[in-house]
C-alpha cells in the first residue's frame, strides 16, 4: 500500500485516495507549434515512455482531497516515494541529482533551457 501526501492541500492518504496519471513532465508539442509537429514527435508525446527501473517521476491526482494534479518521485523497485512536488515544478535538486538514464538526460536538457 502506497502512502501519498498531496503537496497542494497537505492531505495524506493511501493509494486508493489518489489517481495515478503515468509519466510526468511530458509537454504536448502541438500546443506551441501545431503545424511543425512531425509524426515522430507526436508518437513520442503519446506513446514513448522512459519507463524507468528505479527512480521515476509520475503524475498523481488528489482524488479525495483538493482534486489537483501534482508530481511524485518514486522508486519503481522499492516503491519508496522520494518527493511530492507541484505539477509545474521540477523535483527538489537532491532528488533530481539521483535521476539516471532517460530522466538524467531530460533534467539536463531542462536545466540548460532554464539557463
Amino acid at each position, binding site marked *: 500500500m502506497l502512502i501519498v501526501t498531496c503537496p497542494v492541500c497537505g492531505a495524506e492518504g493511501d493509494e486508493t485516495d489518489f489517481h495515478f496519471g503515468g509519466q510526468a513532465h511530458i509537454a504536448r508539442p502541438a500546443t506551441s507549434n501545431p503545424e511543425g509537429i512531425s509524426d515522430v514527435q507526436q508518437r513520442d508525446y503519446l*506513446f514513448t*515512455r522512459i519507463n524507468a527501473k528505479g527512480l521515476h517521476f509520475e503524475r498523481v491526482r488528489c482524488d479525495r482531497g483538493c482534486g489537483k494534479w501534482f508530481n511524485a518521485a518514486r522508486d519503481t523497485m522499492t516503491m519508496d516515494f522520494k518527493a511530492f512536488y507541484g505539477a509545474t515544478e521540477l523535483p527538489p535538486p537532491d532528488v533530481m541529482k539521483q535521476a539516471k538514464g532517460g530522466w538524467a538526460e531530460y533534467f539536463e536538457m531542462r536545466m540548460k533551457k532554464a539557463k
Partner: protein
Amino acid sequence: MLKPRYSIFSLARNAMNYHKDWEKAWRSPQPKAEYDAVIVGAGGHGLATAYYLAKNHKMTNIAVVEKGWLGGGNTGRNTTIIRSNYLQDPSIAIYELARSLYEGLSQELNYNVMFSPRGVLMLCQTQHELRAFQRTAHANRLAGLDCRMITPAEVKEIVPIINDDPNCRYPILGAYYQPRGGTGRHDAVAWGYARGADALGVDIIQNCEVIGIERDGGKVTGLQTTKGLIKTKKVGVVTAGNVSTVMDMAGVRMPIESQCLQALVSEPIKPVLDCVVMANTVHGYMSQSDKGELVIGGGTDPYNNYSQRGSFPALEHTITALIETFPIISRLRMLRQWGGIVDMTGDRSPIIGKTPVEGLYVNCGWGTGGFKAIPGSGWVFADTLANDRPHKIAEAFTMDRFTEGRFIDESVAAAVAH
C-alpha cells in the same frame, strides 16, 4: 543430439531404478565466443523463438541468455489461459496460430504441456459488454473461429456455481464462448521448448544478465553479459517487463510501460469449475487447476512497478468481484499470491519486428495476455529474425505503427478492461 524420448516405457524403466537415472532435460553450457543469433530472455516466448529458429530455419548455432532461471518470469506467473477470440484481424491471426499450435504441442515437443481445451467463457454483465462481445463474435465468425454467444441459461448449465440472480448489481446477460480455448501447464511450456531447443543444439545460458549491447555504425556486434562478451550479429530481445531497460542499452526508447499484474490460488477443493470464466466488467477471471486450486487473476496495479509485488487494493478489487460472481468461494482460503511485471503498449497489442538498430529485433508488449501467444509468437519472431523481414502475420505488429497511427486496438476488446 538425440535425447531419449519420454514415454510410458521410459517411465516404467526409470521406475525400476527409483528414478535415479533420468537424463537432464537441458544442458547448462558456458557461452561460446560467438553465435549466429542470441535471444535475450528465456521465457516462453524466447525459448519458443529459439526452438523454431533451430527447427524451421536450421539456425542451430544460437543461444538464449537469461538473467535468472528459465521460465521464472511471466511464463511462470500467469493464469495459463489460452484463447484467440480477439477483435482485430491481425490479433485473431497471431493468437489463433498460437492456439492451434498448442493443440499439437505436447506431441511436437514430446513434453506434456497439459493443454486442456476446456472452453473459455467471457461473461457479459452490462448491455454495453453484451453488444461489444456480439461485435467480436461477428468479427471472429468472419475469420473462421469456432466461437459463439450463449444465453444466461446455457451459462448456468456450463458453470453451475455462477450467481445467476437477475437482480444483482451485474447480472449475467449472456456470454461469449470459445469452446476450443482453455488452459495449459505454463512451466511445462517453457521446459518443453527449452528441452526441444537444447536437443537441436541451442545453448541456454541461465544466470547470465545482459549489461550492454555492443554496436558499430548502427549495427549490433555483440552482447556484454555478466559472463563476458558474446559476439553476434543478430539479437532478439524478448524480455517482457524489462524490455525498456534492455532496449535502453541500444539507445532505443520503447512505447512501453511496466506494471504489476497479480494472480493468486486458493486451497485445493473438489472439482467445481471445468472451464475458464472471465468476468471483464468487474475485473476478475477464474479457472480450476487439476490439483483443485482455483486460479484467480484480475487487472493490473495502476502505477509503474518493477518489484514483482503488487498492491493489496488491486487484489481486494479482484476478490470482491469474484465473490459476487461466485458466492460459493467466499470462505475459501488463499494459498499463494504473486505478481509479474507486464509490458503494456498504448493499444494493448504486442510489438514484433525490427528496430532502428540493424541486427536488433524485439518481441514485447504482450502485456497481460502473453502466455496464450507463446507458440505463435515464437513461430513468427523466429521467421522474422531468420529472414530479416517481418513474417506475414507479424507485419501489422511492427513498432512503426505508433508513428503511422496504425493501431491494433485491443484495449477495449481485451478480456479485462484496462
